């Protein structure tokens, strides 16, 4: 009894401070999502899915204040030819954003889309709702219900440059909720970039519907402000012969939970999800991935690498579910940590659940330290200990970073990683 009352109060306390945006095409989806939240309740420590990550600061009313990060490092992707869309503490900044029109793509804002956008109405909250089974993700439902803004991207062709969502953090107490919906038509192709600390607390959801033969590239850099907290979700549905590739760099952050839920629904689709994270001190990073194979001949890869030091914590919960008819599935999952000292920890829960008989699935998880022999070899050639350690660390992260197909983006990410490592040497 006591439990139930407490549980109710947690969800109610959070909901009490929020108001559901009303009117417009998303109203029905939002109210459905609110019912899901009430029915599931917000996550608590004792929930199995939150065993390694404390959800309390993500669910409590109001954000824990987060100091702004001051250093003169220029924002990532800034030098690239891109269409930049800027949010400051979760609020769209028209002045700082580029013109939203571009050939082959149509971009609307969630907060502005008063007219009925048919495709978005069919999709908004739909993939999130689908992704609640078999594991509940209440923070994503909360997002669908209360998101204040986001972008609705309809990709009809192959736009000439990437779409960059930039999230600035300016207020120490900002509590932002954004929801993006991306739909790729058959044969379309787009690259979506995301970067920036966003807010003191950030709840972000991205639903991606990739039609047959379409290709979606996603590269995200979560960095800078260490005290920020984030819970993000990606829900993707993949059609026949489509390709979905997502890479995330996470540097700093007292709490980040990145969930990625992918359903391969068309034959011969390909889904790659990768992450590289580097954390120092009270860093806590959680990658939670759930990939469902529900079609024949699909390929999925999960590659997650974590570098942890001074008591940092890394979490990986990754699952490959292969349904009965998903024959010829090729599933690969690896999660590895490089622990730079004995205080840091890596908690991994790799899972395979396979109902088809003709599949090739492999998974592995390891924790290790710097290879002393390799370090000595480098030093004996004149490379000082710091740079030698960095070189070995970058080598460790390489398998994840190499999941980024575009060379320029790969280099941007590697440059950030190098700079971070150099700043955080012992």
């Amino acid at each position: 009894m006591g439990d139930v009352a407490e549980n109710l109060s947690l969800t109610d306390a959070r909901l009490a401070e929020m108001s559901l945006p009303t009117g417009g095409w998303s109203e029905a989806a939002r109210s459905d999502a609110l019912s899901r939240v009430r029915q599931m309740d917000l996550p608590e420590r004792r929930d199995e899915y939150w065993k390694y990550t404390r959800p309390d600061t993500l669910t409590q009313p109001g954000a824990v204040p987060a100091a702004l990060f001051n250093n003169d490092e220029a924002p990532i992707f800034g030098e690239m030819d891109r269409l930049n869309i800027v949010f400051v503490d979760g609020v769209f900044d028209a002045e700082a954003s580029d013109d939203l029109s571009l050939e082959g793509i149509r971009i609307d804002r969630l907060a502005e889309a008063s007219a009925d956008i048919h495709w978005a109405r069919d999709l908004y909250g739909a993939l999130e709702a689908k992704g609640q089974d078999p594991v509940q993700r209440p923070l994503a439902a909360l997002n669908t219900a209360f998101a204040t803004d986001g972008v609705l991207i309809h990709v009809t062709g192959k736009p000439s440059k990437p779409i960059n969502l930039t999230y600035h953090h300016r207020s120490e107490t900002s509590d932002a909720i954004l929801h993006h919906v991306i739909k790729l038509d058959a044969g379309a192709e787009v690259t979506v970039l995301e970067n920036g600390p966003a807010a003191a607390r950030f709840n972000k959801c991205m639903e991606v519907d990739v039609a047959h033969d379409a290709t979606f590239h996603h590269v995200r850099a979560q960095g800078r402000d260490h005290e920020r907290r984030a819970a993000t979700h990606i829900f993707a549905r993949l059609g026949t012969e489509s390709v979905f590739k997502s890479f995330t760099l996470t540097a700093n952050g007292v709490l980040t939970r990145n969930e990625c839920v992918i359903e391969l629904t068309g034959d011969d689709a390909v889904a790659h999800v990768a992450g590289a994270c580097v954390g120092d001190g009270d860093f806590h990073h959680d990658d939670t991935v759930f990939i469902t194979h529900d079609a024949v001949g699909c390929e999925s890869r999960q590659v997650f690498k974590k570098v942890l030091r001074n008591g940092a914590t890394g979490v990986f919960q990754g699952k490959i579910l292969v349904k009965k008819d998903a024959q010829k599935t090729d599933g690969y999952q690896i999660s590895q940590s490089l622990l730079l000292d004995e205080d840091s920890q890596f908690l991994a829960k790799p899972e395979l659940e396979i109902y088809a008989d003709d599949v090739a699935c492999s998974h592995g998880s390891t924790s290790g330290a710097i290879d002393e022999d390799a370090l000595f070899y480098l030093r004996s050639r004149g490379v000082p200990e710091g740079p030698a350690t960095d070189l070995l660390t970058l080598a460790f992260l390489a398998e994840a970073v190499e999941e980024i197909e575009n060379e320029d983006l790969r280099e941007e990410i590697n440059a950030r990683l190098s700079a971070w490592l150099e700043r955080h040497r012992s």
Partner: protein
Amino acid sequence: MLSIKNLHVKLEEEDKQILKGVDLEIEAGKVHAIMGPNGSGKSTLSYVLSGKDGYEVTDGEALLEGEDILEMEPEERAAAGLFLAFQYPVEIPGVGNMTFLRTAVNAQRKARGEEEVSAADFLKLIRARAKELKIDAEMLKRPVNVGFSGGEKKRNEILQMAMLEPKMCILDETDSGLDVDAMKLVAEGVNALRSEGRGFLVITHYQRLLDHIKPDVVHIMADGRIVKSGGPELALEVENNGYSDILAEVA
């Protein structure tokens, strides 16, 4: 060039003395060879000189051009001009051979207050040196020593030596695992580097390498000491009769 006096070394973790008073004087421009039974302490000497962890110097000294190297970090010894071709070169997955070498060359230059080499100049140089050692360009792109055959690893050590141009080169059994032609290549690589200002310490079990790299002095190490030194004929004696006569003689 390299002056080792009364060097005593034990294992850090165990109470085991390995080097029991090594004296060795290698002059610039000279090639010294060390032979000796397995386990006599040859590799240990090379590791201690280059600064590997796990050993404790309990007595004695080692000076490189008058500077006490035993107090230096491994990278400082390298920048000072010391080079060790490893008996067992280390594989480093994820680090490209070329990146590795360029980082090393530039780190040493930086430590010595010299200009870094440009990517283009470096590329030109490494291509030429690699060709001399019959190392194909594809191997330069691969991760350091990963998937290299035993002989390729040894040739890669010599390539590194050629690129780093050290003053004092220690080669620990660089000939083992090499076929006849590769041994010739390695010897040519070494001979090409022989010069007035450079010293060599070649650790080997076989006379054959010494046919190609003619040593000035040959030492026999046994049980952590240099027990006998002589000219090239000493290596021939070992080749023909093994160590028993020599060891009996000095016992």
